[in-house]
């Protein structure tokens, strides 16, 4: 026991509430990063950077030397990767942005799977562990508001979602730009970067809020993980059943927006304006339709995702509010 310290009351300025949620994020990220499987997923996400840069590189070769017969095989590779045959495309350089958007759309599908896994790894324990270890009394005996607590917890999962989506996307864009001489203008690069940020932040908000709501519902993270997988996978199965059972017109509205996976891809199509991208390239008839995720009006997926997120946010906030006010009795 050290008795040499004389107690001195803190006389400096307290950081106040603004320091609270970053503290929660730091600790949460550090703890979650200790899991080997989480690290593996994060490592795997660098594969997206490698893959997209490789495609950008192939596209740049085709732009420059595509007319030579020896590069014909590369068109085949691109067709496999992007789902479109670019052999007939003249002045490919003018369509570079549209082609890059296609690349990011392809990457998105893999990134969504990665995000699903990383959320399942990191998210379930965020609030559930605090409930299990009865840590809420100590949180809420500090000058912390339920909103700061929630913001801190959301930012933890958002940081991991961002690491498998936004970070690789921006890194790919940057490396691709450096490697191939860019998109032609800063406006194009920034426009694409902005779309990627909007899309990935959207994924962070939806995924983060839903997993937090589930995590606040149980002290056992196993139930939360099962709940998360059910929320993600069951609607996909249901969507498949609906698509098969109902006439195609019925699945053009809300019945076509049951699956969150499809909703995100439809919204990404809309955000990246993929329809215009395909049209601009004057590809053979039917090529765009087959490449686009779904011919669904983006309003329906947007409404569904917004409604789910809003409902989850309200439920989660109410739950955390109640927990903060009765932390001592939980």
């Amino acid at each position, binding site marked *: *026991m*050290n*008795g040499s*310290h*004389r*107690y*001195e*009351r*803190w006389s*400096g300025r*307290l*950081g*106040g*509430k603004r*320091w*609270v949620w970053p*503290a*929660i994020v730091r*600790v949460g990220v*550090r*703890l979650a990063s*200790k899991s080997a499987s989480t690290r593996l997923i994060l490592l795997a996400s660098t594969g997206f950077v490698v893959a997209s840069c490789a495609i950008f590189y192939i596209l740049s070769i085709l732009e420059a030397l595509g007319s030579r017969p020896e590069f014909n095989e590369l068109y085949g590779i691109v067709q496999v990767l992007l789902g479109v045959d670019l052999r007939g495309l003249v002045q490919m350089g003018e369509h570079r942005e549209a082609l890059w958007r296609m690349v990011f759309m392809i990457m998105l599908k893999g990134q969504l799977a990665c995000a699903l896994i990383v959320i399942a790894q990191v998210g379930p324990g965020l609030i559930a*562990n605090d409930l299990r*270890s*009865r*840590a809420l*009394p*100590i*949180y*809420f*005996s*500090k*000058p*912390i*508001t339920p909103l700061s607590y929630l913001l801190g917890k959301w930012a933890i999962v958002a940081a991991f979602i961002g690491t498998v989506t936004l970070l690789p996307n921006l890194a790919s864009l940057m490396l691709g730009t450096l490697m191939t001489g860019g998109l032609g203008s800063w406006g194009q690069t920034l426009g694409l970067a902005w779309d990627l940020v909007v899309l990935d932040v959207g994924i962070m908000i939806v995924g983060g809020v839903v997993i937090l709501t589930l995590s606040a519902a149980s002290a056992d993270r196993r139930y939360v993980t099962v709940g998360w997988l059910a929320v993600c996978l069951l609607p996909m199965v249901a969507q498949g059943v609906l698509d098969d059972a109902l006439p195609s017109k019925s699945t053009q509205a809300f019945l076509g927006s049951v699956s969150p996976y499809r909703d995100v891809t439809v919204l990404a199509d809309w955000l990246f304006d993929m329809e215009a991208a395909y049209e601009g390239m004057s590809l053979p008839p039917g090529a765009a339709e087959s490449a686009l995720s779904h011919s669904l009006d983006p309003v329906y997926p947007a409404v569904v995702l917004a409604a789910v997120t809003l409902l989850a946010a309200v439920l989660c906030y109410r739950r955390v509010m109640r927990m903060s*006010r*009765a*932390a*001592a*009795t939980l």
Partner: protein
Amino acid sequence: MAVIELDGLSKWYGEVIGLNNVTVSVGGGITGLVGPNGAGKSTLMKLATGQLHPSAGTIRVLGRRVWDNPSVLSQIGYCPEGDVFWPEMTGRRFVQFLARLSGLAGAAARSAAREAIEQTGMAEHMDRPIRGYSKGMRQRIKIAQALAPRPKLLILDEPLAGTDPVGRHELTELFGRLAADGVDILISSHILHEVEALTQQMLMIAHGRIVAEGELRTVRRHMQGRPHAIRVVADDPRRLAAELSQMASVTGLRITEPDTLIIETTLPEQIYDCLGELILHDQMKVQEIAAADAGLEAVYDYLTRGSALG
């Protein structure tokens, strides 16, 4: 100035009463909050740290309402009774993290955590994960997190529980030093002598009510004249009983075990003197003399029977 003021404060958990219409002021220095398990100590402390909303009445801490008021919480250091750890965290990270939650930023949180850890004698173990800590070490690290933000008021819920005698002595000394440096401390315990070693200023709580308030010696004075029971473990309790039966102050004698005699008396000091003489002059072999009902439960029973002090 009162550090904590309770005015008609009640807290119900459904139909269970946690705290029942309590009006009391807690002054500066160290105040012991003593009471048996389930008396309402933790409820009072949780109300004082803004974790519970009063069902009725008001509570003000450091002159301000505490419910939904983060600014007052930054001046309170709270050590909860139960274990509230993230087991994989090290002690140092745990204290730093909670210092940050209290509003200290970056370097200030780090140095405050380090000092608090040293004060509680945990410097040697601070970089080990909490899951490997003993009960006593866990108590110390909890106290460190309460100290780290350097609060004006410390609210410590059973901080000595689970500590060994040496640790208890060290923590008692620490609390004494903190009080000498101007920190107000409200400390709860269900063991009277634990708190008695720290302070004479007591709040005694039982069944959700304050049954006695003030200095412990005043409480003891009020206890004079009530029947006491003294337990004596001796080789020949029958002979001892025969000697004591002649004393007027002895109101009852019971042999509960072959070597144990329970003496009921209204003047315990006289009995203790007499026992000393019997041991010295009559060569009686006595292994143990103890107050059979000196525990808090007995005191509360007595106080709640209608003789409560104001």
